């Protein structure tokens, strides 16, 4: 992957000039590249990585497996589009394996999500079965470790 992209993926707050220094390219080149990525839709946005375990009232989250009957012409796209259209749905992936769509859903509470699955997802035309997994704790998200073990960095030897 391009160096600019991997740097931004780690930390989207780096400035053009910081990135330019790090990869030893002119600043305007970096700026042009990033603008191009944004234009081409390679970079879709910049967001914070939030540790929900530390946020009060941050609601509940679940992964839902959907078994789907593919349509003759459109395959899985049609169902996927319907699933996507709900605000509760954060991500939708088409999967290889024992089910077809993996959907990440957020809701106010576990019951809230359960109701959403029962009433909105499982009733969709083409959805054959659902399997809901509630998320309990986040250890790592987007490559970032959120699970703070006691930090032994301080024990690294000092002067040497």
């Amino acid at each position: 992957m391009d160096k600019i992209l991997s740097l931004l993926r780690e930390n989207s707050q780096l400035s053009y000039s910081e990135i330019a220094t790090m990869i030893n390219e002119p600043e305007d080149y970096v700026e042009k590249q990033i603008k191009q990525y944004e234009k081409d839709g390679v970079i879709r946005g910049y967001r914070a990585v939030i540790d929900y375990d530390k946020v009060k009232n941050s609601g509940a989250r679940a992964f839902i497996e959907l078994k789907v009957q593919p349509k003759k012409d459109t395959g899985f796209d049609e169902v996927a589009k319907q699933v996507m259209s709900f605000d509760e749905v954060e991500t939708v992936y088409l999967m290889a394996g024992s089910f077809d769509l993996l959907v990440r859903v957020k809701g106010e509470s576990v019951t809230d999500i359960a109701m959403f699955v029962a009433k909105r997802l499982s009733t969709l035309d083409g959805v054959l079965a659902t399997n809901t997994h509630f998320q309990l704790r986040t250890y790592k998200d987007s490559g970032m470790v959120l699970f703070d073990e006691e930090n032994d960095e301080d024990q690294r030897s000092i002067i040497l």
Partner: protein
Amino acid sequence: MIDYESVINHKIKNIKPSGIRKFFDIASEMENVISLSIGEPDFNTPWHVREAGITSLQKGSTKYTSNRGLTVLRKEICAYFERKYHVEYHPESECLVTVGGSEAIDLAMRCLISEGDEVLIPEPSFVCYNPLVQMADGVPVAVETTEEDNFKLTPERLEKFITPKSKVLVLPFPNNPTGAIMEKHDLEKIAEIVLKYNLFVISDEIYAELTYNNKHHISFASIENMRERTVVVSGFSKSYSMTGWRLGYTLAPKPLTDVMTKLHQYAIMSAPTTAQYAAIEALRHGDNDIKKMRDEYDMRRRLVVKRFNAMGLNCFEPEGAFYAFPCIKSTGLSSEEFCTKLLKAKGVAVVPGNAFGDSGEGFVRVSYSFSIKHITEALKRIEEFLKELNEEKQHET
């Protein structure tokens, strides 16, 4: 009551405790301290290397190894050294596996130095050489390196400190704390002096894998006529991020390796077995890990150096190791004052340059073995600190 003072060996008593201890005691009592002071890689040991260690444990390889280290490991070390630095060593008789580069340095000192021998140590440099020379009854002689010379050791300076008692020269490049490297032509000039005065060399090449700007490390042993008068010290700590495994090695002509092995066998027996198995894997399949880490350090290096210069702290471009060594003389503060003030005002810990020898006065060591996020936060605070210092100064005048 035992009078411990009278019991304790006089040489160890005379070794000064590290002067910056108190500085770090302050740091450890403060909250929200962000440190750029640590001299070890921030990466974990590559997984496949850890796994090789685990596998060796599962297989029950938990006994001592041969005193010199596992034969396979010594073969791999010699093959690696020839592949990278083009010097041949015989795995059976010229390679010794040690407990880190640290033990290797200690062995080399104790096996080369006799009472009163002078050991030339370029400074600023790593803190262990001086005390180990003293414990070996030698006399450390500091040879200053300067920013004007890019902190390289020059033959002119070296020659000034040579006396009839000069015996050993330590070559600590790539250098901790300056980040200086020695190129081939630099080493060749040193080699002339070494020959002229019949010196022996302990070449601490532990940072050999971490050089930048495409300047590949040149081993001092690869310089004409130097192999026979050099003990190469290296190890796994820095190149493979394996500090806690405690593994290093020496490469030296047979008669030297033999005596170092003799001492090692009595003092240590053998280097940690698990670490030796992991090191075999590192040497066989670790090139890519080194490259990844080096590329990452390089990005941080550029960032740090540029930012210091932009802040008005002149920072020479380090081409090795993972340290920057900015000059803080423009602030009018001494190294220790600068570090203590910075720590108290902004909670950023960097190491005063004089911890690495008097010639480090006026500089601070900044380690970039930290994540970009950590580094940028620390740099931001240092920048604020400098602004406030300036404002204070203007206030006074």
